[in-house]
């Protein structure tokens, strides 16, 4: 961790992150927030022995990026936290849930440990990426939200977008949890090359940020970006519903994709902003391995987010299956952007 000291000491401990960290909002403790994690990383770099508390608190960061965008001194607590996760694993402190994730992916190629085929959601003919555009469905859409994968593909196949021969997990869960994702990166990269892909289209914010951050040699577009430029080609009708939009952290705050999903939504139905949105959007609590490792905490963060939902809307639309899952579990009616668009397609 010593190599991260220059980044760690950028934190002047002003506490600005205390009131925006979703975990600290729920748990209040100093060690539950970004400043506490920076402090623990400093300890780790200075010889403080890892303890149960350190491991837990380093792992409860949802990687929402809010501390990074709010930090007045320009520190990056998220980068430091990720490094601390890798360090703790390297020191032999991987938790059971980290090891389980590793095993699931190693055995099945997906983060859910599902042994069935990844492509059972494909109902029609399967097109390989001749257009140079490839749809990467991701684990959650492939196995848990197959209607989202189907809807996305039904939209995209009109544009000649293909699929990979053998898609596997993008590696985001491993990478975010401090584990090694290099084999998956290599596997999927090879698949992209063999498919002749120049652009990967994803419907998952987690996959999107993983491709942007850890893969090289391909352009990446979120479905919303791809569609926002092609709205006139979609023959969309107006649906008589009112929706709000939840900005997934890894799409909005991390990569600034705010306008594209709103442009798509406004084309097809009535749109109402969340009470806090875009760079101030609340985290759903699902990211960073928190949903898997600390489900009660993850659920509490999602419950907090409900305070931001405006009254009188029919659905919360989002563009990330992990956000979809965490919000749905609180009883909120959630709709994936692809399903909304498909509803509006004539």
């Amino acid at each position, binding site marked *: 961790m010593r190599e991260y*000291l*220059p980044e760690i*000491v*950028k*934190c*002047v*401990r*002003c*506490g*600005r992150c*205390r*009131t925006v960290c979703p975990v600290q909002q729920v748990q*209040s*403790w*100093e*060690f539950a927030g970004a*400043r*506490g994690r920076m*402090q*623990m990383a400093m*300890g780790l770099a200075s010889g*403080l*022995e*890892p*303890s*149960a*508390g*350190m491991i837990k*608190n380093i792992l409860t960061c949802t990687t929402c990026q809010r501390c990074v965008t709010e*930090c*007045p*001194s*320009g*520190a990056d607590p998220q980068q430091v936290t990720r490094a601390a996760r890798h360090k703790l694993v390297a020191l032999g402190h991987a938790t059971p849930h980290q090891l389980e994730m590793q095993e699931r992916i190693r055995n099945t190629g997906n983060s859910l440990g599902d042994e069935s085929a990844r492509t059972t959601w494909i109902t029609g003919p399967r097109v390989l990426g001749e257009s140079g555009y490839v749809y990467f469905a991701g684990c959650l859409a492939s196995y848990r939200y197959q209607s989202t994968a189907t809807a996305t593909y039904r939209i995209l196949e009109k544009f000649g977008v293909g699929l990979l021969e053998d898609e596997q997990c993008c590696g985001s869960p491993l990478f975010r949890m401090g584990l090694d994702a290099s084999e998956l990166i290599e596997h999927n990269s090879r698949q992209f090359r063999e498919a002749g892909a120049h652009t990967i289209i994803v419907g998952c914010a987690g996959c999107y940020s993983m491709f942007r951050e850890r893969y090289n040699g391909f352009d990446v577009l979120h479905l919303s970006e791809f569609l926002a430029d092609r709205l006139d080609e979609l023959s969309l009708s107006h649906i008589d519903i009112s929706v709000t939009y939840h900005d997934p952290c890894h799409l909005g705050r991390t990569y600034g994709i705010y306008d594209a999903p709103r442009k798509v939504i406004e084309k097809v139905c009535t749109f109402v902003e969340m009470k806090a949105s875009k760079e101030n959007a609340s985290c759903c609590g699902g990211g960073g391995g928190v949903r898997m490792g600390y489900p009660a905490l993850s659920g509490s963060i999602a419950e907090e987010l409900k305070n931001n939902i405006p009254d009188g809307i029919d659905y919360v639309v989002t563009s990330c299956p992990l956000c979809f899952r965490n919000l749905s579990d609180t009883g909120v009616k959630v709709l994936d952007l692809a399903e909304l668009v498909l509803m509006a397609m004539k």
Partner: protein
Amino acid sequence: MDILAKIQNIVPPSRISIDPAELYCYSSDASYIKGTPDYVVMPSTTAEVSEIVKIAQKHRIPIVARGAGTGLAGGAVPLCGGIVLDMSRMNRILDIDIRNLQVLVEPGLIHADLNRTLEPHGFFFPPDPGSSEMCTLGGLIANRGSGMRSVKYGTVTDYVLDLEVVMPDGAVIRTGGMVMKSASGYDLTALMVGSEGTLGIITGARLKIHPLPETQAAVMAHFNELEAAGRTVSAIMEKGIVPSACELMDSTTIKAVNSYDANLNIPDCEAMLLIEVDGALCSVESDAARVAECCRELGAFDVTIAYSEPEMKELWAARRLAGAAVTRLNPGKTRVYIGEDIAVPLSAIPEMLIEIRNISDRHGLNIMTYGHAGDGNLHTGMAIDTLDDEQWEVLEKTADDIHRAALRLNGTVSGEHGIGSARGIYMNLEHGCAMEVMSSIKQALDPHNIMNPMKVGLE
């Protein structure tokens, strides 16, 4: 029964920590002062605080209250170990009593949350620290804080009507009441405000609130000479105008603020004054024009008046975080809060600014200067490579010179951040024999010195 077991009889295990890494997170606030507790406890009621204090008293172990840990002098750092009480769960607004112009709050409430709640009622709590978004009211009161609007609205002292305090023996007292004034007995409220947890632990506060002004205007005046900006501050006051804020920013601060929010695009110059006037529209327009005229007379260029709320909000938000933002200017250097809170008489501001420049030259360390010039409270900021021991030595000498210069000019070592342990060594120099009185009060109320020991210049 050991101490941990006794604490567990009062609060559930989920609200106690003895994990070494978790305790380590409580070993500092925003200052450079360090000290690790043996236990961190998160109480949720006054009764719990009282019972925990009784345990500390019985076992003669130190007990330190902590709000958001945004203090800049080590006030919430447990120098002698013991128990840290994290008060952040006690964050409710218990009563908003507009008819009596007051609110009743718990100490862990975030300052900005109070004002967000009061705004729809047309009221606000005027003390306005830069750390509004994160600091707690308990911390603000215990450190006698204030902020940017104290030039017109005063400090937190002027707004505390009553405190609920757990005393060192666990007894719970109230120091005041609901009345707007009282001549009844010793002013225990004033004694507790600024006592930094050395006499008792604040568990509730009844605070005076103020109607929101009808409107505001901000005058931005740029100067090619820092001292001219300093002279302008007292000139404005001499004209009989009382601005609601009067902030000075030197060239380094301007660069830091621009780097935090590029939209602001403040002109590159030696100094800027940001002067806010508030009140009824007619008086605000007239006062803003007079302030602008005064600035021009004293050599300001590019003097503008802003009335738009979004524009002013952005400017104030960036100003609030200027202190931390200086770290952005040099990636290898980090802002360290030390010698950052002196205050001098208004007439001494230009001289103090010259002193700071000379000190900077003498030690070869760049010092940014900003702050609430309207009440003489100047914040200085220095950034160093915190991994370099030699730079720390230079930093400490520089801060020492700043403190001593302020005292020579009849100033104080802390205008609003408190003494903690960072400034304790100057207390005898600043207060002389009065320190014996402070020491006697401490001895009388906390004879076993369990309440936040080694703070405020006391043993």
